[in-house]
């Protein structure tokens, strides 16, 4: 079993199975281009630095990849298709504790950076699900967004979108 070491921005090392890393477009490209999975070369021992991902977030990413080991890797463009996306129960439980917190957002950013399409889609979907049935002020409160609108602005938006209320 080939292990490849990932190094987080806070310099924690995470030895990860080569197979798992196929879910990450970014790392996979790096591995292939630099022959990092060739055990006969010195490159194999070379750790992969991930300066944009903190250790705790990377740990969660790896945990997610371990659970989804063997899942088909999404290909093509980054856009999610129109089919209804359902967040599976395990993933829902995985995201839920951190929902509305910075860690979930950092996980989403990491999924984007590492190009893990399935994780990104599910993570974004989990966030979008939190908007359902909420009002603007409720979303603001939950996601830490300051209220910038004047009453007049808010009224103008409501007017513009009157049909959707």
């Amino acid at each position, binding site marked *: 079993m080939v292990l490849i070491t990932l190094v987080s921005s806070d310099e924690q090392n995470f030895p990860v199975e080569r197979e798992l890393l196929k879910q990450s477009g970014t790392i996979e490209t790096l591995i292939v281009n630099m022959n990092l999975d060739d055990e006969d070369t010195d490159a194999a021992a070379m750790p992969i630095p991930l300066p944009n991902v903190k250790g705790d977030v990377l740990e969660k990413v790896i945990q997610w990849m371990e659970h989804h080991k063997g899942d088909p890797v999404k290909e093509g463009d980054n856009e999610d298709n129109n089919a209804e996306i359902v967040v599976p129960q395990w993933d829902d439980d995985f995201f839920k504790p951190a929902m509305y917190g*910075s*860690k979930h957002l950092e996980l989403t950013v990491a999924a984007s950076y590492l190009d893990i399409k399935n994780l990104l889609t599910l993570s974004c979907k989990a966030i979008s699900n939190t908007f359902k049935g909420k009002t603007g002020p409720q979303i603001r409160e939950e996601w830490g967004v300051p209220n910038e609108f004047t009453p007049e602005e808010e009224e103008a938006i409501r007017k513009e979108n009157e049909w959707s209320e």
Partner: protein
Amino acid sequence: MSVVDNYRRRSTPFSFFGHYREAKNINSILPNELLVRIFKLVDHKSDRNAKMRAFLAVRLTCRKWNELVGKSRIRIPIGLMRIAQVDHSYGIFMVDSTGEELIAELMENENHLYYWLRKKPHIDYKKVKAMLRSIEFDTYGRVFFKTDQLWGEVEWNRLRRRSYEEKTAAQFTTYFLYEFNALLERYDPQLLLLENIELSRSLLQSITVILERYRRIPRLYLEWKSVNIAPDVTTEDVQRLFANSIDFTCLPRHFATKEFCENYLATSPERSIKLNGETSSIAHFEKVAYFEGYLKTPLDDLCEAIEKRTKLSSELEWHLYIYCNSYYANENIREALYNRKFEKRRGFGTDLRQNDTATGYLTVSMGESNGTPKFEHYLAEFMRLQPLVIVSGRAVGPTLEMWWLNCGFIPAGQGYCMPPKDQLATITALRYAISDMCNEPLPDVTVSMALNASLRLRPLVKCHYSFAKTKYAAEVASDKFFCVGELCGLNEDMGVRTCVNVTDLGGAEPIKNLGFFDYKRKFYLCDKPFCNGNGSVVLASLNASWTTPNTYTHLTNPFRRAFGTDLRQNRAATASLTVSMGESEGTPIRNDFICEIEKSQ
């Protein structure tokens, strides 16, 4: 906490984030592209209403989000977008979503935001934009544009005349294309219906180009009977237009060669899936219209007949659409109809008297809460509720698709229903769109007989009954109103046209029209083309298949169902209306027949 415990805590999926639940500004962490991605996922296929509300909430969160949603071109899903040409000479087009509620129910059977978009073509764009901002909801969540100043017919005609003088056809066409483009930018229709259009090559190409700019629409339907395609339009032009539809599509007959259909369906996996039958749906829309809305068909028989005819019993659901186009149908009736659900296949064969325990869902309240119901007044109203369409949907996957139509009255407070013509066009389109028949000449829904005769299958409708509505029965020739037999050709305006006796072998032979008439609020059966004008009943031989006692049961069941119901509360029967089958004046020629009827009641 030991080091090991700490490690374990960190290793479980639920513990990791526990210490990091501090809320941070989402905008400070997520880049714009991820925010837009999230916004685009604010979707719930089966609940457009929720999606729209969520969009407004997102826009109201902060300026940045409002801007991002605005710029990200997130299109609002709607059911039907219909393009029709109001006036061919002047090239005036109308884009609306008439029948949205209809199609929404058909496609999703969920609570949707019903959306009513009606644009008056003569208004200039600024006015249209202003109008778009003055939308209001009706009580059922549907939306329609407020067009106070333009609603009246007089005003409409005046403006139209002025528009004729000021605008040329080319200008109107340009306006239309501009509007169409703008609407597609904002809305994402599931079905685009083009009808009643003089489709020149340039117009067709323009529409094609506009469609190509946007994501493909699920369904595109060209109502070929009313669309005149210019001679210079080529097959390639049409094929390019229809290439914008990802789902099953019907083409104008002369463009829809077998090869084209096969190629079309083979060009995308989505289309091939359709061919495999895995996700396809079949729906039969059987219109059972009755003159003045008097339904007397035993619905059990109707179900059974359809079931036998289609031989798809276990895979089909039957739904009865009650079409309430009566001006007299009061709000309570419509409310009841609106909320009804025929969820069980045999449900609508239920005796209404036992509605509390029966499986049926035909809950019709006549709205009388106190005192004695005014049957003489309300009965006619009740009877005018027209069963229009029987719909069947084949099961898809683990769940059954619910196919039932809805009464299209709009707006709720104005007390009228959508005219039959509007719905018929939609229904015709839908029958193509959601059936798997590509350009097969579907039977005309307005004539049940044609449907049955053309399919050469078992009888669809076993019998119909009808009443004359007029108070002056003596002046009305009853043969206009009633037929009996296996199947009758029906017309909404003219009533029964003729009847045929469809045999088990599929043959059809004409049978004699029969008649009912109303005389001083008593209903008389008449089986002759001309009943006596003085109220006496003339009965002649019933040739067809009504020769056994069972037949009489068929004949009388509807009476019990309709008249024996306590219309006030829809509960236990009180048989408040006496239906006399005998004579009031004059002498019936065949007393024995009348007696049989009375016994069976």
